[in-house]
């Protein structure tokens, strides 16, 4: 056993006491079995925290209104002086020690989650700003900031501190229900703050620790570009301002280590001279470096007590022992023990007796006899172990005995007699036993003091816990009440949804009883029930969507039913076609039908019926009724017209003709008419029950067409498009998210870009029309009545009017840059405006007296021609088409007198009305001609003079255009559906344009000369206007139409077929995408000029 000097022992004792006291304070509250820490070094990291603090976690929020102002943001305060808003700003920083702003708690996953005060604010920092603006505190119901890792290291050897903390901001939108307008809450991202080598210096004067030196860094990846991070402790900023980068150095950390760190993050917005910041307070309750003893820590040696060796009993030793102590002592009594030795051999010499107190050697002596005793004065309360070891140094045999002694305790160290300090002070005299006694007393007092401290703290915290608990219970009750209310509301809502499901399903079942075809929709509904009713809950949005989808399908099914009706009627006509075909031994179809059929694989049948024959039939029926036919007669007219219309399409070969045209004579036509009439009679019989059936059918389906945008997709219209070649025009995407959306990538954007190169405003207007939907109304009302005297112009029409007044628009159309849909919309707008102008002109003439009667009474009708007057006509798109009309007086005999004057008056008023409507007639290419009359007496340069040509001109206009007539009630009827099929000569005789076709001498020697004169006139006028020659292709496009008219004037009714090259001429006229070149152009040009007697160099280039 080593012997030590008195001074050393003294130091050891004091150090032991001090260490014990410090550790007792530092160790976590409610500590369980706390291991003695590594000497001089304390490490607290997250797992330890969770272990230690689970019983004491609590949630509490700072009462911002009660908090005191802190000085860590002096710049704000100074800058903003006495403004009231300033005083309130830092108020959310609680500086009250007793106010536990932030405590650590467990997260659901045993992570440590920081609850606390996160305050976002912004303030103006320049330009004499008005200081802090919009300070908003957040009271988060859910964790917003989470500590991912936290490591604080305090090295007491070096008296320095270092640490790393990573926090992450989680943006939980659901937690912001209590946000008021303007509050900021957005804190996604992470921040890693690390600091090291921070020295801890004790300040006697203030009895606190001060932080000195050290360095740190903050890696900020929170949302936004934050420019400053401050680490504040005890109201002192520990850092300098950082840089604008995400990595902010913390230099010269110094300040007072308080029980909380305040992290301030600022984000500066120079553009608006505004800063956005966040302040985060982090409590550090697990570390309290205050020094209640007011003593400087001293670097003393620990007492060097000799620990007893662990010796085992030698059972075969030639001696035995028996030892005993008083098992129970009162406080203040000494421990007395005795030992008896029984020697079984005379060879046994002196024995070493070692008395051991609580594991430490208290005394040691050599015994020659059979007895030894041990006296331990003033043992501290508690259970002590006294062990005696008897060792034979010669043989190494050992006998051991141990006794427990229970010493009664004191209530507190204060009540214990102060015996130890004196003992300790005289420890040198008292030897090892006193030293051990002092140590044990020190241990006891420290433990007791800790115990008392714990009890006091436990009592205090128990009180707080109770308060917290009650508060929590109150909040729980409140939350539960809210939850119950929500639950009741939810249940009611669920019941309502279930009711809605039953209602809808019942309704659907009723519907499918009437409409068998929709039966599958019940299955569809049932199949999808599982996805709108999940986990025992109805999904309101899903149910609504499902109903919408089923409704859409119902509409489609109804359309199909309507289509079936059309097909049924169509089949009727098809049978006739078959008969016609067999008679003619021809399988040719019109080009239009071929095209439609090809592109839609038969689906085009759907459109053919209503647009071509059926609509014609309906209008024919209306006309028939206007002529006085009613009931069965009118129905007969319908059937006849429907059949004849189709038949005569074949016969007359409208459009490009079949490769080997058949010669059809009058006899054949008459035969066919007869056959069709027979069919018609049968059809009439079928319609006896409901003579209005076709009309009802059309009207009914028409309504559906009006409300169901999908039908266009089911009924494609063939037309050329701005892609390559013919395309099937389907409905544009029905779904168009509200607002502006891009039509992009395929042609559209490129087209608009190219248009903008021509004219930016033009491109804008084209896009605006697209944004408006570029809607074309296929069922525009054709009757303007006194009660509805004009077409109302929509916003889209207003845009379209800008386009038709823009000279560049025509260029863009010719270049193929304007989508067909837009072209059609523009044409329809122009048509509306022109129709309004015509109606206005009619009304104006009502009030003009001409030879004793109103000028309007002299007028017969206005024939509207020009492809552009038929917006839905496939030929109307792809090239800019004009809107031409001719006003015609009642009686040709009046030409040159009142009738002619009435025509001129009409034209003048029409032009005036057009101007007032904001349309530039020249740019828009809207022309109103004052009559086309065959009168050699009054030659006019703008029209034919020969009777035959005048007739065919009228026929062309009538068959390809529309006609406006005055109704008895003062209204105006525009008779033609835009897509109506042309009226044929035979039909004209019976049901034509309100009159029988005029009779004229078939052959006129002047016909060719008349046409030639007109061609010369037009070409010369254009050359003088443009100043340059016109190439043959352009001449053919513009003036080629005269050749077929000349031919028809001479050959109509003869049964002869029109020469093939005239088909090319007409196609050039009608299809701007059709071109001729090379030998083919030369051939057509040669035929044309020779046939018309025109010079080969007509136009200057030929």
């Amino acid at each position, binding site marked *: 056993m080593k012997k030590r000097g008195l001074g050393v022992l003294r130091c050891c004792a004091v150090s032991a006491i001090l260490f014990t006291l410090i550790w007792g304070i530092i160790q976590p509250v409610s500590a369980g079995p706390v291991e003695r820490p590594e000497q001089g070094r304390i490490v607290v990291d997250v797992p330890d925290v969770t272990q230690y603090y689970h019983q004491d976690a609590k949630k509490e929020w700072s009462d911002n209104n009660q908090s005191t102002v802190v000085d860590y943001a002096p710049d704000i305060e100074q800058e903003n002086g006495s403004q009231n808003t300033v005083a309130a700003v830092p108020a959310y920083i609680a500086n009250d020690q007793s106010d536990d702003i932030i405590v650590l708690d467990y997260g659901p996953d045993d992570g440590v989650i920081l609850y606390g005060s996160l305050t976002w604010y912004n303030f*103006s920092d320049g330009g004499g*700003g*008005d200081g802090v603006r919009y300070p908003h505190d957040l009271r988060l119901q859910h964790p917003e900031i989470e500590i991912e890792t936290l490591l604080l290291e305090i090295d007491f050897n070096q008296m320095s501190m270092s640490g790393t903390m990573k926090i992450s901001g989680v943006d939980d939108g659901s937690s912001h229900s209590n*946000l008021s*307008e*303007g*509050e*900021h*809450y*957005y804190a*996604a991202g992470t921040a890693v703050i690390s600091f090291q080598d921070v020295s801890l210096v004790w300040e006697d004067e203030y009895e606190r620790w001060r932080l000195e030196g050290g360095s740190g860094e903050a890696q900020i990846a929170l*949302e936004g570009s934050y420019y400053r991070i401050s680490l504040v402790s005890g109201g002192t900023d520990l850092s300098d301002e950082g840089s604008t980068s995400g990595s902010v150095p913390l230099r010269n950390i110094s300040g007072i280590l308080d029980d909380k760190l305040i992290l301030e993050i600022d*984000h500066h*917005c120079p*553009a608006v*001279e505004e800063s*956005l910041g966040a302040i985060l307070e982090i409590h550090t309750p697990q570390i309290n470096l205050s020094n209640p003893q007011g003593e400087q820590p001293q670097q003393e040696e620990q007492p060097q007590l000799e620990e007893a060796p662990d010796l085992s009993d030698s059972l075969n030793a030639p001696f035995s022992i028996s030892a005993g102590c008083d098992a129970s002592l009162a406080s203040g009594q000494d421990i007395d023990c005795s030992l008896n030795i029984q020697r079984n051999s005379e060879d046994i010499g002196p024995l070493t007796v070692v008395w051991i107190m609580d594991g430490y050697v208290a005394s040691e002596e050599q015994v020659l006899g059979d007895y030894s005793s041990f006296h331990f004065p003033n043992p501290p309360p508690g259970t002590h172990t006294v062990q005696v070891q008897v060792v034979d140094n010669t043989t190494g045999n050992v006998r051991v005995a141990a006794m427990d002694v229970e010493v009664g305790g004191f209530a507190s160290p204060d009540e214990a007699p102060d015996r130890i300090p004196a003992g300790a002070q005289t420890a040198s005299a008292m030897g090892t036993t006193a030293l051990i006694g002092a140590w044990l007393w020190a241990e006891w007092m420290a433990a007791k003091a800790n115990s008392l401290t714990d009890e006091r703290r436990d009592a205090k915290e128990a009180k707080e816990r109770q308060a917290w608990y009650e508060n929590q219970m109150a909040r729980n009750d409140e939350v539960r009440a809210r939850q119950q209310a929500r639950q009741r509301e939810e249940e009611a809502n669920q019941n309502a949804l279930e009711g809605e499901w039953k209602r809808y399903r019942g309704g659907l079942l009723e519907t499918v009883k009437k409409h068998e075809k929709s039966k*599958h929709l019940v299955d*569809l509904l049932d*199949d*999808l029930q599982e996805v709108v009713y*999940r986990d025992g809950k109805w*999904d309101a*949005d*899903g149910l609504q*969507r*499902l109903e919408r*989808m089923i409704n*859409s399908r119902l509409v489609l099914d109804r359309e199909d039913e309507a289509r079936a009706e059309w097909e049924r009627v169509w089949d009727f006509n098809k049978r006739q076609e078959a008969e016609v075909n067999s008679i003619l031994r021809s*399988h040719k179809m019109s080009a239009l039908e*071929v095209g439609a*059929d*090809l*592109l839609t*694989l038969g*689906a085009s049948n759907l459109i053919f019926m209503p647009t071509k024959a059926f609509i014609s039939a309906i209008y024919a029926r209306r006309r028939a009724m206007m002529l006085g036919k009613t009931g069965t007669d009118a129905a007969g007219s319908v059937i006849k017209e429907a059949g004849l219309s189709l038949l005569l399409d074949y016969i007359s070969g409208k459009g490009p003709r079949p490769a080997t045209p058949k010669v059809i004579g009058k006899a054949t036509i008459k035969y066919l008419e007869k056959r069709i009439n027979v069919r018609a009679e049968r059809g009439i019989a079928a319609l006896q029950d409901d003579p209005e059936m076709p009309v009802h059918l059309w009207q009914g389906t028409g309504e559906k067409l009006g409300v169901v945008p*999908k039908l266009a*997709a*089911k009924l494609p219209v063939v037309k050329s*498009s701005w*892609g390559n070649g013919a*395309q*099937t025009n*389907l409905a544009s*995407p*029905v*779904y*168009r*998210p*509200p*607002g502006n*959306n*891009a*039509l*992009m*990538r*395929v*042609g559209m954007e490129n087209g608009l870009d190219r248009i*903008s190169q021509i004219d930016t405003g033009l491109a804008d207007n084209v896009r605006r029309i697209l944004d408006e939907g570029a809607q074309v109304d296929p069922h525009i009302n054709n009757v303007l009545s006194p009660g509805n005297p004009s077409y109302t112009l929509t916003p889209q029409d207003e845009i379209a009017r800008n386009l038709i007044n823009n000279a560049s628009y025509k260029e863009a159309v010719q270049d193929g840059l304007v989508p067909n*849909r837009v072209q059609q919309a523009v044409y329809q707008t122009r048509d509306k405006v022109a129709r309004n102008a015509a109606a206005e002109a009619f009304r104006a003439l009502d009030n003009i007296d001409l030879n004793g009667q109103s000028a309007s009474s002299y007028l017969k009708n206005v024939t509207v021609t020009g492809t552009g007057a038929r917006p839905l006509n496939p030929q109307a798109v792809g090239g800019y088409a004009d809107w031409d009309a001719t006003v015609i007086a009642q009686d040709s005999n009046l030409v040159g007198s009142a009738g002619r004057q009435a025509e001129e008056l009409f034209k003048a008023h029409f032009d005036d009305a057009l101007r007032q409507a904001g349309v530039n007639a020249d740019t828009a290419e809207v022309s109103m001609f004052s009559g086309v009359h065959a009168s050699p007496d009054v030659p006019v340069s703008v029209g034919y003079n020969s009777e035959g040509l005048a007739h065919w001109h009228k026929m062309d206009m009538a068959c390809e255009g529309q006609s406006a007539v005055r109704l008895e009630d003062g209204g105006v009827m525009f008779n033609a559906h835009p897509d109506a099929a042309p009226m044929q000569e035979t039909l004209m005789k019976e049901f034509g344009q309100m009159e029988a076709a005029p009779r004229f001498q078939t052959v006129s020697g002047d016909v060719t000369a008349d046409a030639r004169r007109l061609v010369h006139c037009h070409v010369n006028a254009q050359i003088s206007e443009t100043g340059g020659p016109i190439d043959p292709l352009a001449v053919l496009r513009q003036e080629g139409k005269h050749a077929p008219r000349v031919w028809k004037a001479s050959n109509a009714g003869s049964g002869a077929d029109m020469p093939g090259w005239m088909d090319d001429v007409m196609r050039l006229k009608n299809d701007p995408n059709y071109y001729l070149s090379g030998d083919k152009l030369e051939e057509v040009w040669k035929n044309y000029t020779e046939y018309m007697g025109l010079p080969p160099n007509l136009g200057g280039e030929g």
Partner: protein
Amino acid sequence: MKAALQPLNINGQELSQLLLLAGGKPGAVSPLQGLFSEDDAAMRIQPGGVLEKSDWLDGQGQQGISSLSVQARLAMRALQHPKTSVQLVLGDLQEILVTEMYSAGGFQDDELVIFTERKAENRYVIRPGVSPGQVSDALLEHLMIGPRLDGLEFALPLPSKAALVFCCVLDWIHTLRLLSKLQNDRQISFAFTPQALWQRAMEIQMGDDLMWLSALLPYLFPNLEFTVSEEKISGLLDELAGMGYLDKRNDDLYYPNDFVISLADALVPMLSFGSCAIRQMEEELTGFHLAFVVGVGTNLVLEAAPGTDGQHWLQLTAVNGIELSKLLFRIGLPEDSEIEETPIQEEMAPVKEEMAPAREEKTPVSAEKQRFCTKCGAAMRPGVKFCTKCGHQQSERGG
């Protein structure tokens, strides 16, 4: 219930100001990358301008300093740091509508923000508040026009390049249909040489006319590699012949089988098409990408799937309109109703399993209920009308 923000139609300067107010430059995968200008951002927000008048700002102070509303910050976050992008394509023969949407979360658990860029005009449109249900409904409404209870039904997997050539063949068939009708020629032979097919494919490519499937395919799957050189077309045709879709009768002539001809007639030209691509922004090819083509005789669902050989495969599945509706409807549902659970997906699953054996020229082992092609003997799924290996049409009882 929060009211949805108004859509914004702003210029580049206003966009920069918006970004500044939202707290910084856009992230690496943001669609706003490169659109932030510090000079523009430094300009004061124009009084009475679009931004100032919008409900995106939550107030304006005495110094004209504004801040973004909470909803606006959320919307901008979806654009600044998107985690998911959604591309919705709706089109027909005349035009195509492409809408790009972004979300700061997943597809189903967050609102989507439409961002449209019109650089040439210096205009940018931002429309927040789009729900997955709206995306689903858009597809539903747009694609509902196809056959409902009838039409072709089949499933066939093809490597992406072979799929392109397959589409060229369908286009070729339709081309001949057009020509024969225009020329009144009833005797049509659909045989072709690789050169003729290549030439026609190039015409279609040059025309960029979406009525042709081969021109449309790259638009539907912009992420896939579809380039095929003239030299390789023969090999790909041989591959299709090996699968039984074409019959190579002599050295240079290929004949499409009845199935391919029927498919061309049912599909080309299509009435309508669309696609929905949902992509995790960080990972290029992860996500969900389905395309739909609706013809007069079939509804075709196309799905890209990575193959083992590095090449992507296209799964072509034809379904009736009801099944298509179910599939589309589920796209807009919350996440727990996953698309993979739909019948169409379940149907596709066994076919996917067959993909590997098909490539290895192995015939899948059949179950008891398995049907077999009457021509080539390949295993067939119940209900299919054409053999997926050789394309032979099956009789009602056959197989």
